């Protein structure tokens, strides 16, 4: 009976739950799904992380390679993110060139890296003007159930914390780079940007961490990326229903709480990996 009603009138079905201040999966309006993170599972990558936000699963792999630094910034390296939404994760994606959703997500991650200064690009330079590291961050979604941006940001952060770069010295005689794989060091991560996404319903109600169905029914979305000092790296609101300044304030406070939750989880995981 309920399944039939849900198919015919999905919006009405949802409103019944929202009136009671809860959602079909039993969560409250401000509650996130269970977040799990697994670090360092991909041995062929220099750094990796797997993040699960309820059913949404994103895996991030970071590979480091050599490149010549850009001519207009000879002491900087590169961080190149790429988000891939393969047909595996959801029936709405087809195989072929990246669709709009994947491109928008890639641009979002690139903006977060740029704005939050998570890594100083100067740290990636080995020899000014000649050699620098380029970090290719590949984020692949394995299961799409909404809130892909939060999962990607968390996976990226966790993977970058896991990256170990070998020591590189330039041999003066041969002018070639010598890589010492036995001596590896972690990257210095300056800030910890954490994303919190909201969906707007009926122009008034804001719910946190929307699932795939909720995103489909929502009239607007909002993503806030905050670092540990409460500074905003990104306020991404791609159209949709209007929001007043007061509603934005509520979202900010929720984002601050979420940042604490995520930081705690990440510190737990990193600490559990340390004694090797």
């Amino acid at each position, binding site marked *: 009976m309920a399944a039939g009603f849900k198919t015919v009138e999905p919006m009405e079905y949802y409103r019944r739950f929202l009136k009671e201040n809860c959602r079909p999966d039993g969560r409250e309006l401000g509650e996130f799904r269970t977040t799990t993170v697994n670090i360092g599972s991909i041995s062929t990558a220099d750094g990796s992380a797997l993040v699960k936000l309820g059913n949404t699963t994103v895996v991030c792999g970071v590979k480091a390679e050599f490149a010549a630094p850009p001519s207009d910034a000879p002491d900087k390296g590169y961080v190149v993110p790429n988000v891939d939404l393969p047909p595996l994760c959801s029936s709405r994606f087809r195989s072929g060139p990246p669709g709009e959703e994947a491109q928008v997500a890639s641009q979002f991650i690139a903006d977060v890296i740029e704005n939050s200064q998570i890594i100083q690009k100067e740290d990636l330079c080995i020899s000014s003007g000649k050699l620098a590291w380029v970090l290719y961050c590949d984020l692949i979604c394995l299961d799409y159930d909404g809130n892909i941006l939060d999962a990607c940001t968390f996976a990226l952060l966790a993977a970058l914390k896991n990256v170990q770069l070998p020591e590189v010295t330039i041999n003066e005689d041969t002018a070639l780079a010598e890589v010492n794989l036995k001596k590896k060091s972690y990257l210095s991560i300056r800030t910890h940007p954490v994303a919190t996404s909201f969906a707007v319903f009926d122009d008034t109600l804001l719910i946190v961490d929307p699932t795939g169905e909720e995103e489909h029914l929502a009239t607007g979305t909002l993503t806030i990326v905050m670092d540990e000092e409460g500074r905003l790296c990104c*306020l991404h609101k791609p159209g949709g229903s209007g929001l007043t300044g007061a509603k934005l304030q509520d979202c900010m406070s929720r984002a601050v709480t979420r940042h604490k939750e995520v930081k705690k989880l990440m510190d737990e995981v990193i600490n559990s990996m340390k004694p090797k």
Partner: protein
Amino acid sequence: MEGPMRADAKVCSEGGTESSPRGPGCSLRHFACEQNLLSRPDGSASFLQGDTSVLAGVYGPAEVKVSKEIFNKATLEVILRPKIGLPGVAEKSRERLIRNTCEAVVLGALHPRTSITVVLQVVSDAGSLLACCLNAACMALVDAGVPMRALFCGVTCALDSDGTLVLDPTVKQEKEARAVLTFALDSVERKLLMSTTKGLYSDAELQQCLAAAQAASQHVFRFYRESLQRRYSKS
């Protein structure tokens, strides 16, 4: 046959002649708008903000491909072409922002199973490009007669390293700024429709920029109203 109608406005000039007094640096550049300048699209507009210029054309409501049709509302599509080169990932991201903003105001339910296409061509970029694209898109939608529940406008704010706010920054101001925030606001209640930001800033600075953008949007909406009044009163 009415030809293209021009409307110019020097809003909040450095001399501070019109409107409410604002802080130093809180002024919008000269803007100008020309409508109905292209013959093929159903609606077209060219919007100039200082030296930034964007040309917009709207086709619709028109036939839609069966794969893209939505049964109960119009399918909106936005195409943004940069001045040089092929459109890339950054353009796709901006197209998504502009499209979602238009979808929030266009009454798509009045034209189900049709498509409304907005094509934007960047003619020159001298700062505040996204805001200029939004303004051009709104004027073109009005020129095409697409039913909308409100008008929208784009405003850009730049925050420099000591926290001073500059509205409608030039390319130089954007490069030197610590953060650049672009907002799209609606005309009915000045609510925030779209926002995209670059750089680091605090919550208090965000509220300050939003308030300044809401004040600036009044001028933009007044300019829209005046330019349309001028256009329809002559014919």
